[in-house]
């Protein structure tokens, strides 16, 4: 599984990345995390704001910090 956290590096983006890491650690899912900070790359996903989370190419959340439990529901499917 490939998880991307889109965002230039503000505290909200960092918290989102941490929640993703925690969710992966707790579920034991085999996943890689990539932090995407390049504005043009982020724009390519068509998101209105950041932080955003993309899992296997599917945009799961935009402009908010998803909770660890919410992320778990996405990665445990």
């Amino acid at each position, binding site marked *: 599984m490939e998880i991307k956290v889109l*965002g*230039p*590096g*503000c*505290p*909200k*983006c960092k918290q989102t990345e941490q929640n993703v890491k925690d969710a992966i650690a707790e579920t034991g899912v085999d996943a890689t995390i990539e932090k995407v*900070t390049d*504005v043009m790359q*982020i724009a390519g*996903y*068509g*998101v*209105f*704001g*950041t*932080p*955003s989370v993309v899992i296997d*190419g*599917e*945009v*799961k*959340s*935009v*402009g*908010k910090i998803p909770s660890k439990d919410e992320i778990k529901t996405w990665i445990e499917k």
Partner: protein
Amino acid sequence: MKEKKMAEECCTPGGNIMILACSGGSNVGQLSNQAAAELTREGFGKMFRLAGIGGHLGGFVQSAKDVPVMVAIDGCEVGCAKAILDHAEIAIKNYLVLTELGIEKNKDLKLKSEDIRKVKAAVRSACE
């Protein structure tokens, strides 16, 4: 510079208002577009691509679902913007139909400044 600006916006509490205009081929369609563009330039929200939602592109649809404040502007009662949002199962938070503001629909694409002002004021009011 762009990255710095985005980093600042990224941390802004509450985020931006999403403005979705039908941008149709009549005076009222183009009024929706012009008002959305001017409001964006003035810092009141940010115009977003309704066509991306219509194409069911994931990032656009999810953005519209997650944004806390949104306004959809249809030029006339045909309601193309509303139909696109309904089709993508996006809850419409604020909604305007410009003919209901007393602006008559026609094919004259030379927009009147008084109409643009009226639409912008209505959009601002709808988001209060």
